[in-house]
């Protein structure tokens, strides 16, 4: 079976009857559904015509968020006044497949997942019709308010790390989500023209913020005042379009990433990554390929696609390829404590599908 069909099969087979996608069915810590992973998986399903699966996922998100509406509302009522919210008062980024918060300690405050949720719903709507969006609009509006209130609060990044910083990749996800969903919400009559203008103004603020704090030596950086790179800076352009993929600062960022984080087709997260020794992430290779497909450099995108295909074992795509790791001495310890690297990782399959689709029809 071709890796495309295999990838679709894996995703379809593992989607829960609740609509949730487990991050990885075989890896203990990943038996949850993340908003971030899930939205990309749903997007891949939308690209491949399985809209019903995507719809089921977003309805699951909606029910889950509505279940914890009380938390969001009490945070909004507080508006970060005198008291700091406790770390567990934030909305979580992952849930059990039944849509329940997990009780084990975890870095749950990750705003990028909520941005991705909005972005994913918008993509689904564009591929189908407005009906799902209308049904789940109450959670979309809640998320809009939530993000608007707390976007400048430090939180974990998309790698679930560095909780004391504000991350440009997270800001990009918020930006992309808000920008994509607002016109649709207005079209559906759920928000007013005034609301939309208000949100667009906020988008300009986010963008200014990124430009003020996250450019060093002419390229984007993951942390203010440093020149640290992270492959997640890709988010700025793809798919969230906080900036154009052709923008010189973005191009320079890509060139820097290619130089220091890419080994053949494998893309590392960042230089000091030691999770499972810090290997090459399939989903990032696909992501980088997506970037190249978007700007019309299809040869490089194809190289990356081929690289991914060469690393699928039994048709499964793992989270990382441990072919070239930054800290080999740390690998053993992870395997002992957490088990073998997660495989299949549904997000890896989804990103592969997305890249495959983009190369089939560039700029779609």
């Amino acid at each position, binding site marked *: 079976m071709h890796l495309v069909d295999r990838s679709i099969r894996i995703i379809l087979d593992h989607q829960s009857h609740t609509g949730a996608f487990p991050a990885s069915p075989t890896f203990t810590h990943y038996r949850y559904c993340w908003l971030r992973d899930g939205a990309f998986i749903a997007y891949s399903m939308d690209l491949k015509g399985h809209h019903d699966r995507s719809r089921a996922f977003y309805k699951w998100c909606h029910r889950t968020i509505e279940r914890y509406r009380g938390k969001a509302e009490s945070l909004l009522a507080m508006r970060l006044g005198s008291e700091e919210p406790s770390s567990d008062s934030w909305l979580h980024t992952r849930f059990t497949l039944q849509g329940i918060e997990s009780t084990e300690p975890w870095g749950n405050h990750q705003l990028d997942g909520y941005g991705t949720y909005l972005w994913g719903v918008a993509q689904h709507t564009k591929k189908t019709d407005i009906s799902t969006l209308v049904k789940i609009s109450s959670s979309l509006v809640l998320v809009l308010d939530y993000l608007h209130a707390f976007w*400048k609060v430090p939180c974990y990044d998309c790698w679930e790390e560095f909780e004391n910083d504000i991350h440009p990749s997270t800001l990009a996800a918020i930006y992309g989500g808000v920008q994509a969903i607002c016109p649709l919400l207005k079209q559906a009559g759920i928000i007013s023209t005034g609301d939309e203008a208000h949100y667009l103004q906020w988008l*300009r*603020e986010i*963008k*200014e913020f990124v*430009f*003020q704090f996250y*450019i060093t*030596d*002419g390229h984007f950086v993951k942390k203010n005042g440093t020149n640290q790179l992270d492959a997640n800076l890709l988010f700025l352009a793809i798919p969230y379009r906080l*900036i*154009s993929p052709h*923008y010189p*600062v973005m191009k320079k960022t890509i060139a820097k990433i290619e130089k220091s984080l890419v080994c053949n087709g494998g893309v590392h997260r960042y230089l000091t990554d030691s999770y499972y020794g810090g290997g090459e992430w399939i989903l990032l290779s696909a992501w980088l390929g997506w970037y190249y497909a978007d700007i019309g450099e299809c040869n490089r995108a194809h190289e990356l696609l081929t690289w991914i295909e060469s690393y699928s074992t039994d048709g499964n795509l793992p989270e990382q390829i441990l072919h070239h790791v930054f800290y080999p001495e740390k690998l053993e310890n992870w395997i002992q404590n957490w088990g073998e690297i997660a495989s299949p990782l549904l997000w890896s399959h989804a990103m592969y599908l997305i890249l495959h689709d983009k190369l089939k029809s560039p700029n779609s």
Partner: protein
Amino acid sequence: MPRPIVVGNGKLLINFDTRLNMRDLYYPYVGQLNQIGGQYCRLGVWVDGVFSWCCDEDWAIHLDYKKETLVSHIVTRNERLGIELIINDGVHQRDDIFLKRIQVRNLRNEQCEVRVFLHQDFSINETEVGDTVVYEPTLHAIYHYKRNVYLLVNGLAEKEGIYQYSIGTKRFNHAEGTWRDAEDGLLGGNPIAQGSVDSTISFRVTVPAYDSKIIYYWLCAGPDRNAVKKLNQYVLDSSPGDLLDRVEVYWKRWVNKLDMKYADLPEEVIHLYKRSLLIVRTQADQNGAILAANDSDILQFNRDHYSYMWPRDGALVAYAMSIAGYDGIANPFFEFCAKALTDEGYMLHKYNPDGSAGSSWHPYISKGKIQLPIQEDETGLVLFSLWKHYEKYRNLEFVQKLYVSLIRPAAKFLKNYVLPQYQLPQPSYDLWEERRGIFLFTSCTIYGGLQAAANFANLFGDFERERRYAEAAEKIKSGILTHLYDAELGRFVRGVYVEDQELLKDFTLESSLFGIFEFGVLPATDERVKRTMETVLRGLKVKTQVGGYARYHNDYYFQKSQDIDRVPGNPWIICTLWMTEYKIATAESLPALKEVIADLEWVAKYQMSSGVLPEQLHPYDGSPLSVAPLTWSHSTFVLTVNKYINRYKELNQNQRKLQNRTVSHAFSR
């Protein structure tokens, strides 16, 4: 500590701090040399055996000027002593004489004897080495001297002159200074001392219950003994009170010489407008230098001061004063610039008031590369300002003289100092003199300067040069629109740095982006300008009770808060007023314009009680930060008020035209 009271005549400038100490005395130039150097020349009072310095905490001091004058009106009261002093300080508008009137009011129900002590701590020509103080009985006066500077002090209490005096050593070995001698109410009478010296004199009056007596004190500055002797005699002959009254009248006439119509501006704004004109006058030297500030307390922070003429500050002050009708300050400034311009056609970083080059930290070489140590906006602004001056006064003879000595060489420099591949000026230091690169503000002033030069060339029929200058200006404009505008962000950027053949943009939000419309590159209503200014307005607003706008995002200078989100920097008077200028330029109706008055009232709210404006405000309590007065703060207020009034007139006329049209329509129907 700021200087809420400054008095001067364009040659002699004297500053007082908030506790009535005389702290700076500049002579023979405004800003050069500081004969006190920030030391404390104290004022003390002895009442029936009890002594107190007026800088002590039990004096309640209210500082102000007499309305519309450069004569102070200070009320200081000590309940413990039962004494109130009403003090008027002024400098004669022509002669180098400082005059002080002290009305001593007895608040008690019994007569008392009051002795007033005045302390002089001069270090002549900025060093105490080789000073002399002497009492001369035939003059019954004291004078400090060294080489070409003589400072004579004298006074009158009723018909009596100086009561007692003390002359001695200060800050050397164990001697603190003669002021210590005053604290028992008596002065030793030593007639001469040399080296590191100071002097204290006293006056004595007997004041009946609930009554008052007047004491006069004066200080004459001159190049030799004869000169100060003559000035002293002039005061005695004219009577010091009458002289001080004439000083008052002079400044009232000066500040009201034009029949200004202030549109719908409130009283306190007009009041601060006039105060600003007067303060600017004190900070401008008669030979043309317009000083940035003369508050020597900044020495504690920088080990250098603001008593220099930056051509940028000077040009913008001259522009404001020209628009306000005070070409008396602008004319000598342009003549100063013509002399100060280098042979290569650029203005240096800054100048001393005597025309010599000021201190600088800008190197001629950096990372092994030769560079010019300049802030190029300082050259562009002089030409820009000169054209504005010409537009107002049409003084052809005046600008004709400057055409060859100033306009042409400066324009030639601006035209040639470019990077042709980008059509931008070559790098130089920015207006805050903090970084080197190619900045929007600087580039816009160069555009404005070249346009001005083209206008002058046209004026004199020099059409070939007009073409060259205009062409150079257009190129700069296209460079600005190409490289200093970011289409992705939809706004102009602070500047670019040239590195390895590429331009790196600086995205820091910056108040001086207002230069894009101020110097005529684009109208304020252009969409790109609007988006830029609206981003600046939101991003640099200081979100505290104090309000106002920061200079730029994360401004480090005198930084008081790490909460950059709420306090991007301390509020600056000039930057806040630049935002006001944008609002004025884009106000499309009278009601919209009227909203701008709140900004002007904001400035008035944070003036010191005497009307002096500082450079910056504390973001939480609004107290003055850095130097005060800052000439540029006052001149920007003057300019903004004028822009307001002009816009008011325009909109008013438009409205009338519109009404007339409606009326005639009604008739035709």
